[in-house]
């Protein structure tokens, strides 16, 4: 934060956009210097590409099947056309190719329905990636609004909002998300509800951070100046307070995406996240858990996928933190 701020202040020559640009470029350059953060960025890039390509692919096949009537934007993100096992592959729970009984036709074997395991793993990327980003984004949005209002106005509003946030914080996210998903959906849980559930559960984390940032930024001279010249509260919040509180929030959001992926995997593992036949890593672990004795391989791959993805976000988040605030190391 400190560096980013100084940087923009030093280069105070032209409009907002230009300054922001220098800050960004500077940050990105610092991240690329850091080998681990760079690795994290590459992992995210690969995961993002896989997620986007598979989503497009799944929806193209939906179009070709003529299933446009039930089109919904949210569902299209995890729509999966494969309603039945691949025809032709009958062998179920086949081990990976390097074990006796495996074949290169199905490099990581097949699942209990005889579906190719590696392709389900690849398609499963979508849920983790999009849910991770969208749910975190919702929490960020809600938390920013509540935290900014709370910190800026203070007094009564602050008391009420912070009590509410504190209460929400007291219910463990996973528990909150399970109860939310099951009950708000009316006993028919779906990943869409999970997205909103995680968003709700993350409001406190972001609200608290934003509020503390706002409390310090609020006292800055430039905010005082804006207020003195008669700028509206809402504009002060939007143009000065929130942008200047954003660096630590961005770091938190990146790390929080990893937490979201963990929660959603746990949710699917319990059976309240992605519903079959949609391929999802947590869901795959839920099924493979039953075959720990006969085919332990089935449990290994989805967990590895989750691990690598979250590690990408964590490495990048740590790098971002170092780049934005070199004091902590």
């Amino acid at each position, binding site marked *: 934060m400190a560096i980013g701020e100084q940087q923009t202040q030093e280069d105070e020559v032209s409009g907002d956009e230009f300054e922001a640009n220098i800050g960004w470029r500077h940050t990105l350059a610092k991240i690329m210097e850091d080998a681990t953060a760079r690795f994290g960025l590459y992992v995210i890039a690969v995961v993002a590409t896989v997620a986007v390509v598979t989503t497009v692919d799944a929806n193209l096949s939906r179009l070709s099947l003529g299933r446009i009537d039930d089109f919904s934007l949210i569902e299209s993100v995890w729509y999966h056309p494969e309603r039945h096992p691949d025809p032709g592959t009958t062998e179920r729970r086949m081990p990976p190719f390097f074990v006796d009984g495996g074949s290169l036709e199905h490099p990581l074997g097949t699942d209990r329905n005889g579906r190719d395991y590696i392709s389900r793993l690849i398609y499963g990327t979508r849920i983790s990636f999009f849910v991770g980003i969208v749910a975190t984004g919702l929490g960020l949005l809600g938390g920013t609004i509540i935290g900014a209002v709370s910190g800026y106005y203070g007094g009564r509003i602050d008391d009420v909002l912070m*009590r*509410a946030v*504190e*209460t*929400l*914080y*007291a*219910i*463990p*996210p*996973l*528990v*909150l998300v*399970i*109860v*939310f998903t*099951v*009950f*708000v959906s*009316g*006993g028919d849980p779906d990943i869409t509800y999970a997205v909103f559930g995680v968003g709700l559960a993350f409001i406190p984390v972001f609200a608290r951070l934003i509020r503390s940032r706002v409390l310090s930024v609020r006292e800055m001279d430039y905010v005082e100046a804006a207020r003195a010249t008669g700028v509206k509260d809402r504009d002060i919040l939007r143009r000065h307070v929130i942008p200047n509180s954003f660096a630590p929030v961005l770091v938190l959001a990146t790390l929080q995406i*990893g*937490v979201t992926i*963990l*929660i959603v*995997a*746990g949710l699917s*593992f*319990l059976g*309240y996240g992605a519903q079959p036949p949609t391929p999802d890593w*947590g869901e795959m*672990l839920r099924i493979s*858990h039953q075959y*720990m*004795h006969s085919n*332990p391989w089935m*449990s*290994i791959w*989805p*967990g590895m996928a*989750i*691990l690598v993805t*979250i*590690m990408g976000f*964590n*490495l990048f988040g740590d790098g971002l933190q170092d780049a934005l605030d070199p004091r*902590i*190391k």
Partner: protein
Amino acid sequence: MGLLRYTLNRVLQSIPVMFGIAVITFLLVNSMPGNPVDLMLAEQEASPELIAAIEARYGLDEPLHIQFLNYIGASWILGTVGIPGFTGSPPGLLQGDLGFSMYYERPVSGLMVDRLPPTLLLMMSAFAFAIVTAVPLGVLAAKRRNKPADHVSRIVALIGVSTPSFWIGIMLIILFSVQLGWLPSGRLVYPWRDPSHYGLSSQLELYYQTVRHLILPMVALGTLQMATIMRVERSSMIESLQKEYVKLARAYGVSERKIVRKHAFRPSQLPVITLIGLNLTSAIGGAVLIETVFSINGVGRLLIQAIQTHDYQLTLGTTVVIGFVFVIGVIITDISYAYVDPRVSYGEES
């Protein structure tokens, strides 16, 4: 005296939060479209009389705000005071009554007495495991900053925060139970039970079995905590080691070992205590999953069973209790923080 008042203060402060937990949970569970009775009866064919009887029994025929007053036990108080319309209301949360579980046909509070101890045992041992491993490793990493030991500890911490706890559990079962056959893969042996219950002859044997059964779930649940504590311990220790008084001690020729143990260690523990308080939520969430993986009959698994069996009051009760456990845990960490850090003014007017 100050500490006692501080404790009391913290407890009083948490009352609105506990009330809020009851409100949020109640609203969530009631946000369901349709009637909870439909969900309770699931696919069963039920006569209107049966539905009406169930509604009356659980007070579901009342308006929502009255239902809430009933649930938290305010109606009972109003009834005993003699306000008409509330007389004869059943006791609720305030009286320690969490409702009645339809599936288990038992009061929810009775179920909690059975199910809370295993969860607490699991969580406490997980935190103990995390602290015992993370603190020395974090100190070591700080002392050997940017040396191989530091890199190893950072990699371990990174993997620890990036891995789902239930997957670690599954991997541990596959390795140590299925493949090697060294440790049991599920259920706990409770040290507070009579050894004969498990067919064991002595108390010592009982403890041995408890430990054996506890190791895998403890490690699975504790890994995330270990990783986060290790990170904070490391950075906090590095900060302490750069403090002026440490430099002074070094200038006086105090040995590095003594500096770490006598000067830098204690102040570095404050952020760790804060972190443990913050980590309680993820630990409880993790306990839900770990209890499922290891078939441990704790509160977390009870919540899942309550949801699966459409047990409305049990779901409500379990969620509220989980929230309360967290609040109490945070109070305990706050108090220990105040105890360790002499600078904390106990919220007194100054």
